[in-house]
């Protein structure tokens, strides 16, 4: 119907390829740097073709870590993974339960609970760091996994997403389960959870990434190297004079920090996009 001139067909490709180049370029450079020696990176300009130190750098990053820090990437990957999975599963479980209570029951404090959860949407960690830090330290949870995970587990978005989904479930299904004599918890586990698979998957992707990428909170409460997450480790490796920074190790660790969430998004792109755009409403 509209013009099909060559010009109009090529232009979008040009812009999109350019955009992809800008998106990929920094990561490409980081990858290149992670395959060279420190000296090669420091000799300006840095080479733009892969070097031969790939295995050496990555095995050092994974098993020993940078010289100015005592934590290896394996330890940090473990910590990041525990934190990300803890946050993702924690959020999903408590949000499913809360949304189930809010949608399928009528109780006097329902409105109050709903609004209390809703308001947390408005209080990002960044604005309440000091008092939250104090509570965690009073509870003796500094340098623990619980301390890393618990304050991040509340999720207004997950409660809303599940609530919205639960509202769309036909009443007849619930009534049928009642005629069969199923208890509310039986209904929850046997019927509701299996029906909610897709929103749960979407939430999992979003919350896993959220947990993996947390920075300020672990920065505050982890002072022991064996509780560092990858991002905190990278920060520590970079805080020193330029000459001491082992760029090749830092860059290898950066790539290790970047790959897991990216892979999760790429594999579950569909669920992820629908989950993100659904919570908007």
């Amino acid at each position, binding site marked *: 119907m509209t013009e099909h001139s060559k010009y109009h067909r090529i*232009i979008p490709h040009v812009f999109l390829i350019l*955009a992809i180049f800008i998106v990929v370029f*920094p990561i490409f450079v980081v990858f290149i740097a992670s395959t060279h020696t420190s000296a090669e990176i420091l000799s300006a300009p840095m080479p733009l073709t892969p070097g031969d130190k790939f295995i050496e750098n990555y095995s050092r990053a994974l098993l020993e870590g940078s010289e100015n820090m005592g934590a290896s990437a394996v330890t940090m990957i473990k910590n990041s993974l525990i934190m990300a999975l803890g946050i993702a599963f924690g959020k999903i479980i408590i949000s499913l339960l809360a949304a189930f209570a809010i949608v399928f029951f009528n109780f006097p404090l329902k409105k109050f609970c709903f609004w209390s959860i809703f308001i947390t949407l408005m209080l990002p960690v960044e604005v309440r760091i*000091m008092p939250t830090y104090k509570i965690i330290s009073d509870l003796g949870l500094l340098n623990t996994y619980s301390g890393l995970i618990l304050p991040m587990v509340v999720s207004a978005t997950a409660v809303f997403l599940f609530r919205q989904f639960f509202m769309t479930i036909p009443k007849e299904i619930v009534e049928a389960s009642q005629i069969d004599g199923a208890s509310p*918890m039986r209904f929850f586990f046997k019927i509701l959870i299996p029906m909610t698979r897709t929103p749960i998957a979407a939430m999992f992707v979003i919350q896993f990434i959220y947990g993996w990428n947390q*920075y300020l909170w672990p920065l505050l409460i982890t002072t022991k190297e064996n509780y560092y997450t990858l991002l905190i480790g990278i920060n520590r490796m970079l805080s020193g004079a330029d000459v001491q920074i082992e760029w090749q190790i830092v860059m290898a660790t950066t790539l290790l920090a970047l790959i897991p969430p*990216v892979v999760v*998004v790429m594999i579950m792109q569909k669920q992820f*996009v629908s989950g993100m755009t659904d919570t908007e409403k």
Partner: protein
Amino acid sequence: MVKQYEFPNKELPYLLVMPQMIIVFVFFFWPAAQAVWQSFFLQDPFGGRMIFIGFENYLKLFTDPEYWDSFGISSLFSVMVAFFSMVTALFLAVQANKKIRFASFYKTMMIWPYAVATMVAGVLWLFLFNPNVGIIAYALKHSWGIEWSHLLNSKHALLLITLAASWKQIAYNFVFFLAGLQSVPATLIEAAAIDGASHRRQFWQIIFPLISPTSFYLLVMNLVYAFFETFPIIHQVTEGGPGKSTSILVYKVWRDGVVNLDLGSSAAQSVTLMILVIALTVLQFRFIERKVNY
């Protein structure tokens, strides 16, 4: 909305919401209340004495030119990040939404940076612009004679954090704009094309008004992102410097509280920020209720 079936149980729902409510109270309301409480006191950083001083922390804060500087920088930074990342994302979403080959490949390639941590985005661009090893810093120096130094030049510093923060946010905006564009009925566009409207007119007079709710939502989300969630970039790339030229509000709260141990002032700043977030969220919801356009 249609009411969902309701189970008759009286105690069970309390048990079900309990975990969520405990965490909400212990980690949200309690710290928020503490922040409000502490903001009225002068506090010894090593525990012990607290002296009630009323609104003095706020008074000191609002008469401190440094605070207003920080506010100004945060606003400038947020507006730049929101502008760059939204305009770029909308433009690219329009391109990717055309009926072209490889469209789904392009989409995937645009979406994945969402998964890159804000902090990692900071490290990536820091590495490219590092005056000693950065490949872009090298190119700037040898091709254009620009001596890049974000640790000494505050314009460079602001530019670098804006670049890193926008780069990371494009993917998020792209996802929403693309969803918005896909919901514009194709029949409307075809009708306009038959009437002879140019591509430009189709976009500005049909598509753009129809996606205005998405745009508004994204505007608020981008401002919130730049104001509150870019702490990792600032902390990693500039540490608020040179001087205090990139010390945005969230960074200042952290610095005053964690590094300088000025708990009263840090609490007053936290409370001010909370009010700001609440205002933004309320604004968001009032507009969503009105649906902006349609």
